């Protein structure tokens, strides 16, 4: 599995929430963090990150403020809100249930049916 994977529809929001649940990050930082966590196996269209960020902020799951980046530049940092924390939990739970079910289906053998 060396090839990079395309992101599944709708999972970007969850990954962003997860990425900044560890510490506040700016947009590019989120991108790097997701790639790092995925061990460089996920391909994210860089521009698509921002509409997702704006949407999440609009829902009140993340909040942003301007701060200074590691190389002393002005950058917007995103952090998780309390509502976002709850959202991440419920999303992860849903995701885990889903993968279990789908994995179960895919592993089914003729004898089991």
């Amino acid at each position, binding site marked *: 599995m060396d090839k990079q994977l395309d992101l599944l529809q709708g999972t970007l929001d969850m990954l962003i929430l997860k990425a900044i649940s560890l510490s506040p990050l700016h947009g*590019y930082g989120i991108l790097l963090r997701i790639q790092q966590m995925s061990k460089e196996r996920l391909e994210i269209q860089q*521009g698509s990150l*921002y*509409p997702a960020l704006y949407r999440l*902020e609009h*829902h009140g799951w993340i909040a942003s403020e301007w701060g200074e980046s590691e190389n002393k*530049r*002005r*950058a*917007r940092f995103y952090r998780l809100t309390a509502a976002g924390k709850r959202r991440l939990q419920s999303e992860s739970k849903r995701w885990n249930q889903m993968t279990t079910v789908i994995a179960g289906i895919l592993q089914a053998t003729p004898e089991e049916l």
Partner: protein
Amino acid sequence: MNLWARFRSWTAAILRRTRMEREMDEEMLFHIEAHAANLVSRGVPQQEALRQARLEFGGMETTKEECRDAIGVSFLETLIQDVRHGVRTLLRTPVFTVITVVVLALGIGGNTAIFSVVDAVLLRPLAYRDSGRLVTILMNGEDPVSVANYIDWRDQSHSFVALGAADYWSPNLTGVDSPEHVVGLKVTQGLLPMLGIEPVLGRLFVVGEDKDGADREVILSYRLWQRRFSGDRNVLGKPIVLDGNAYVVVGVMPQGFQFAPFWATRAELWVPNAFGPRIHNRGGNSLRVFGRLKEGVSLTQARAEMSGITAGLEQQYPGTNRYVVVTPLKEKVVGQIETPLLVLLGAVGFVLLITCANVAHMLLARAAARQKEVAVRAALGARRGRIIRQFLTESLLLGGLGGAAGLGLAALATRALIAISPANIPRVQTVTIDLRAALFLFSATILTSVGFGLAPALQASSINVNDSLKEGGRSNSEGISRRRLRGLLVISEFALALMLLIGAGLMIRTFAALQAVDAGFNPHNVISMVVSVAGSKEADPSRRAIFYHQLIERVRSLPGVQAAGAINHLPLAGDLWGWPFVIEGRPKPRPGESPGAVYRMVAPGYFEAMRLPLIRGRYVSEADNVTAPGVVIINERAAKEYWPGEDPIGKRISFDDDKASPPTWLTIIGVAKDAKQDDWAATPSPEVYLAAFQNHDFLGDSGSDLASHVSYMTLVARTAGDPATVAPSMKEATWSFDRNLAISEVVTMDGVVAEANAQPRFEMRLLTIFAAVALILSTVGIYGVISYSASRRTHEIGVRMSLGATRGDVLLLVVRQAMWLALAGSVAGIVGALLLSRLMTKLLYGVQPTDPATFVAVATLLGLVAMLACYIPAWRAMRIDPVAALRCE
């Protein structure tokens, strides 16, 4: 939380739009630079790194648009764009905008004003606790009840939490400043608690207080408390003097409290009602009975129970319990005014519809003129929905402006409505433009805006881009569908206006018929005032007749007074008593079937002062005193009904029930012309006038049931000039006898007659105003349509003329179009009016709802107006120069 976040990002997006855009740029540039730096650190050359970073990021503009979309900014952006565009468009045509806004303000404001009246008067529950369960129980649904009946109903019924009853009582309040004749009620103990309204001060009556001897307590209205006692909280426990007796103040009711709501509405004090010996009285009807239905008992059940009880009582005491009706209190209060108000609401609704139609075709004309603009937008990629949205935004802007102006108008109109409303509209004083009215106005505005804006928007958006944009594209005669729509609008405007005009016409005829009614007496130049002796030294039985006699003499001698007399209850203004009597020499009638008559007591001079002519016989004179044989005068109706084909003069009647034997016979000495009684539009019932100064009840003999009801007389004086100018000297003449005499109800007879016709006058005025507005609007409408379509047909007319059409032909062409519209509108309107005018039957007098004269007159009027409206465009069309017309395009 989420909502708040959304709201915040929206406001940020709107208020700090430039800042948001700048930050968006900054954030994305930072991303690209950071990525480039990252690439450089991995060994990519500087230039190449930046290029690659940009490439990997993707289209920045698209991303930004997606970001805006993500928080819904684009919806708002579009809205703001549309509003801006709308405002600009409206400002570009200020005359159109102002006219439209004024028209809309009239429609919306008028509707809101009438709605606020309907809401306050009809829709709101009465101001008592759980008032939906309150009922009245009255004979024939309106007449009072005897004490014995009330007691039997109370004791036998189970449908009610409580029953209570009230007597009208208007005592003299003395001992504080000047004496005053106030309106009050004698109520049974349970009546006020039944209403569920707590006093602001003190308490309500407690059990036992309506027993004899314990009934000298009084509860004041807030108004009386403020007016006579300056809101003094120490008034509790203090005695006040009513009709010469001391009553202790035990409570004060809250501001705005009103009881009873449909009769004695001006009651300002309440005292306990001790029935005394009246508990056995089944003949004298004076009580109004109220009840509160038990939880779970329906009106139908209560009615069934009451009809069972009264059937039993009727068997036991024949003639005493027929036609007993249980009516919900609210129905009793608003029943009379419901139909007129709903008719007015409907009428003003029609005005709004006309307004809509009018604005709609003005917008249609505009939309046609803006075809090119729309075509350009469509060609540049605007979708149809987008164009409709923009047109609707414009309509909403217009509607909003109209609504805002309408709000101001409604506030003024409501005040005017209250001022001209007849006194018998209950609760009209509580009418205000409140939140409910504002909500009504808001929804009316939205509905109206969509109503007049949708058709033009749909029309405007459905254009053929190619045709419209073609260079030199001719503005041909209008397309069929558009012309049809405009025609339909004018036809409906016309039809609606016609219906309103017919309504107004019927009311004008009604009012004229009412004005032509003969009152029997001559109401011009007559002044009257109620003079009450209660609580003064003149109340003494030995003094009363002498006092009133002297008072009338003194008034007669006043300068400007031509004649004077007195009566207990003035026709149309005063109370109305009915009494059964027996006729000498006739077999005793079956119970409940005795002849009855309206019963008034007069002092000599009354008939002369009122110019109420005698048909036969003589007037009551000074000689008819307490020692002389009793005399009465009857009206024509009584003569016809009870002595048909006979001469009633010299016949004798008696008002005693079987108590007195031998009965007190009263000889008929005269027959007077029928005079109006309490209802201007009704035919008078049989009536009997007794001579007050020989009547034992009136003279205040003890033991009389009526003692407290006859302590006043209404002085009546005919004057040479303006009657109102005599009032002060009449008052002075009265007080020269005794400062403790209470004077009230100082009114001219003309005023009384006007008041009796106040409701039809109110209805006529409003309907006429609505109809006039409708007429103007539909005139403008038909003018607009005809002149617009004539101008669109300039080319066509030019062609016709160059092919030999004469000016007469052109005139006909234009007029014919207008006349078709007017005719179609009139037909539709007449059909509508035939269907709807029946609803007005209750408002009409002396005219049928389908009165042909009114219909013809109104249709003719509208036809003429339509002619007039199309005259200018037709004239203009006639003068078209064919050469110029063909060349100009």
